């Protein structure tokens, strides 16, 4: 401190260099400021737009899937919240995957390998959420939520899932499974094909029933919203809705769920009574083609599909020889037996082969015209009936009468009339997997390597055997056309669209496939025959039911396959129609029941329809036969 030299300026400071330094600093600061001005003020908007583009992402707004009501407005398909476990692969370190999946599986009480399979199958961006298990319990969802810290990448989300209800609103997927179908995860192929329609990789799509055929209506239109994402790609806050989601449309079935229940119970009763594995009952309004009930047994539980069916459950369905996943009413074809005599009879009248009143001889066994002597086809009544006209022959279901009609018609005219009545072509009902069936024709013969069908085959085709195979729906629809005066209607399964409480807001119109090119007189002749089946003929044991209107119908059986218990197994059919109002003449209810492969004598389908009519119209049940003894019923 005492240094006397202190304070002496001995600095060799150079003013020039100080100025140079200062100027350099000023220039540098000015450069920074100028550049900032350019970035922020001049081009600010441009950078802001680019920043927004880079940190926002368009996210789909899912539309709620449409509800489904039965024709009385009972809800049969609803959306319920369900807990879904999802994984964001980007947040799940590879080395922890196994451990995390095992823990999730443990908490959700599922097989962890299934979770792994779903995670591996996903091909989207690692920032997308992969649903790995749907429909876990609330309890499991809470447990997984509690362990979130130890389960990186795992998210539990509440998602709507489909719930299928019965006529009383109980959760029961089996009542309407073949009508409603189910939804399932979209696969990669479908995603590729449909991606432009707004489907997402983790989306669901209708897989069966009207869920599949009315996919477009039920799904609605997904909207989009612009979401801000963070640097890791996670969508966060919504900035704005780009397009609102349009909810799916609600549908009303033509089906009455209560009638569906009664038809199901009737068929179950009959099948149980005689030990059958498969059966079909379809009920229709013949005036409009509306399907009022459509039962195919065995059914499956579509609620199992709603949250993703387990591999084991699915295997059980697939391996069941009775094929519960198939709607036997439309997807499988069977020989129609004597019910087909409607086609042969109407064709014979229209083509002038016979007239309504002309009697034809019948035989115990019908000699095939161009075959060696002694090669004959039996009547079911080996004694023959003597001479019969059309209505009589139809009422007693004489085989030899209709052999003669078929041979006289020839294969072309018989086939054309079969096609005209809707056989050999799909009906156009809006359900997936409909079969077309087989009708005897030269084309069919040529496909077998022959010039023509054998005359014996032609004769048998005339009684619905051998080279004729139909779906139960086709048969019902042909009889509906008979009942309604010759209008072949396209069977309807959806009646229209409704509001959220199940009130019809838009009715779909019934569609006429074609007017049957037959005279009212000839149709009337066949209707008289069908009425006589009940009153004097074959199905006499249903005659005394106190039904509201006059019942008409036709039985049918078709033998097939190998002998069991000494009897050739056979399919049995009963198709019938009646007016539901006393005094009405127009039939408004037509029903067909098909029983697959029975080995007991009698026609179980007739009994099933009888049971159904008794239940539906609330009749006394004393006329129901003991199901262990169908021998009272004639077997044709």
């Amino acid at each position, binding site marked *: 401190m005492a240094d006397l030299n202190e*304070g002496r300026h001995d600095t060799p400071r150079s003013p020039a260099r100080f100025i140079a330094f200062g100027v350099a600093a000023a220039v540098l600061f000015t450069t920074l400021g100028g550049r900032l001005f350019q970035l922020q003020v001049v081009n600010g908007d441009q950078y802001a737009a680019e*920043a927004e583009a880079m940190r926002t992402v368009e996210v789909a707004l899912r539309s709620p899937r449409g509800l489904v009501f039965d024709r009385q407005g009972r809800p049969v398909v609803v959306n319920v919240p369900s807990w879904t476990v999802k994984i964001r692969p980007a947040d799940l370190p590879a080395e922890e995957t196994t451990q995390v999946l095992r823990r999730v599986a443990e908490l959700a009480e599922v097989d962890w390998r299934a979770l792994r399979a779903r995670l591996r199958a996903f091909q989207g961006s690692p920032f997308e959420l992969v649903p790995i298990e749907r429909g876990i319990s609330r309890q499991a969802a809470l447990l997984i939520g509690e362990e979130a810290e130890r389960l990186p990448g795992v998210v539990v989300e509440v998602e709507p899932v489909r719930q299928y209800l019965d006529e009383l609103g109980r959760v029961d997927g089996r009542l309407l499974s073949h009508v409603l179908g189910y939804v399932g995860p979209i696969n990669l192929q479908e995603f590729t094909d449909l991606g432009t329609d707004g489907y997402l990789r983790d989306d669901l799509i209708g897989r069966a029933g009207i869920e599949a055929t009315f996919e477009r209506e039920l799904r609605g239109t997904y909207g989009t919203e612009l979401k801000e994402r963070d640097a890791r790609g996670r969508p966060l806050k919504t900035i704005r809705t780009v397009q609102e989601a349009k909810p799916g449309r609600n549908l009303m079935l033509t089906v009455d769920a209560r009638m569906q229940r009664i038809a199901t119970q009737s068929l179950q009763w009959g099948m149980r009574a005689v030990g059958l594995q498969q059966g079909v009952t379809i009920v229709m309004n013949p005036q409009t083609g509306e399907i009022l009930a459509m039962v195919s047994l065995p059914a499956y539980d579509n609620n199992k599909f709603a949250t993703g069916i387990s591999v084991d459950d699915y295997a059980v369905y697939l391996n069941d020889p009775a094929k519960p996943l198939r709607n036997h009413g439309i997807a499988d074809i069977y020989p129609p037996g004597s019910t087909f005599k409607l086609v042969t009879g109407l064709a014979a009248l229209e083509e002038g082969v016979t007239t309504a009143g002309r009697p034809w001889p019948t035989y115990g066994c019908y000699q095939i015209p161009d075959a060696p002597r002694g090669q004959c086809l039996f009547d079911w009544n080996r004694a023959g009936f003597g001479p019969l006209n059309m209505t009589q022959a139809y009422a007693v279901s004489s085989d030899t009468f209709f052999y003669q009609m078929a041979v006289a018609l020839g294969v072309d005219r018989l086939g054309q009339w079969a096609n005209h009545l809707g056989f050999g072509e799909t009906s156009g009902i809006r359900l997936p997997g409909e079969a077309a069936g087989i009708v005897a024709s030269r084309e069919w013969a040529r496909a077998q390597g022959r010039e023509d069908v054998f005359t014996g085959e032609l004769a048998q085709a005339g009684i619905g055997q051998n080279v004729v195979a139909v779906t139960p729906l086709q048969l019902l629809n042909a009889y509906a056309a008979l009942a309604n005066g010759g209008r072949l209607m396209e069977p309807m399964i959806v009646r229209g669209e409704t509001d959220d409480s199940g009130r019809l807001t838009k009715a779909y119109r019934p569609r006429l496939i074609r007017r049957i090119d037959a005279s009212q007189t000839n149709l009337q002749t066949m209707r008289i025959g069908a009425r006589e089946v009940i009153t004097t003929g074959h199905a006499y044991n249903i005659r005394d039911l106190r039904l509201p209107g006059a019942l008409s119908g036709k039985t049918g059986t078709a033998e097939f396959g190998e002998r069991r218990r000494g009897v050739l197994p056979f399919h049995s059919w009963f198709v019938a129609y009646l007016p539901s109002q006393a005094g009405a003449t127009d039939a408004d209810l037509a029903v067909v029941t098909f029983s697959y492969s029975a080995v007991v004598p009698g026609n179980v389908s007739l009994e099933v329809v009888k049971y159904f009519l008794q239940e539906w119209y609330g009749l006394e049940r004393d006329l129901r036969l003991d199901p262990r003894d169908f021998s009272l019923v004639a077997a044709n």
Partner: protein
Amino acid sequence: MGAVAATSTLVDNVRGRRWRAFDLQLFLYVVLLIGFGVVMGYSAGFAEAGAGGGLSQSVKTLIWTSIGLIIFFVAASVDYHWLQTLTVPIYATVLALLTLTMLIGTSLFGAQMSITMAGLDFQFSEVSKVLMVVVLASFLASRRERIGKLSTLVGAGLLMAIPTFLVFKQPDLGTALVFVAILVGMLFMSGASIGWMALLAGATVAAAPLAVQSLQDYQRARLFCFLDPYADPQGACYQLVQALNAVGSGGLFGQGLTAGRQNQLGFLPVQSTDFIFTVVAEELGFAGSIVLLVIFGLLIWRILAIGWGARDMLGMMVAMGLASMLLFQIMVNVGMVIGIMPVTGIPLPFVTYGGSSMISLLFAMGILQSVRMHARKPTF
């Protein structure tokens, strides 16, 4: 004034007058900058962990500032000439610290840049910068008579070369460049021969490709992004593109504190440290950025004034070394996020969050105050 001075004791008089020379302006600018850092640190911490994260960041900065202020006042009250006597031990300490860091340092972004002690990270390269200013100032002051000679240049270059090499090998390219900037700035201000300097600069530029070759791939890729950031916007230049977008989105007045979308959504890399200026630009806009740059400009101006008014060569060199250091850091750090400088890890003085940086800088400001307070011979 005279009457009062005459009745005072010598020591009291000297001490009182010394502190009266305390550069309030310099102190004020530093406080403003630290304030800026606390506020922006809050926003950056907010981005990572909400209000709690922001507060914790600010509190930490304030704690470091408090420690730094103690050191500042100690440094200010000590005559800076003492440092000259300690030149050799200081230089030895610098080399020891940097060697130690290279050997046992904690990896940070792939570089051994800090040493962890008692749970705290010490980045010795920060204090080394300040200490090297002192070492170089001592050396140049001692060679005042031979300042124009080549040997002075070479000697200064060699003194600086060893620590530069050590940090370069960490690898911490940023600090290495700061060392070079300090060397160039101080040589220029010392009055060294412009001719010789130009020659050496030419040689350095010729050797630059060699240095670039020895860089790690990621360093090289980032280094050249600024020439064309959109060449690889998702890869090496991702940070720069995001930073440019953030700065641009700030507009005239910014998006508001803690409301910068790029910052808050984590699009900015190391936003509390090297990219803090992006947060300023995005959230406070052009206006806020300019205010910050003006404060920096005033700070540099004050240091120049202190250097000009320094009592001797040592004081002037210390001031101008620190001015060079700060100017270079500001230019490179801000230039980096606005795309006119290569991306290197250089902190923004006082604003970037970091204890080592804060303490070192306040220590430097203390020395500057000392230079300022000893600028004039005491009047009796």
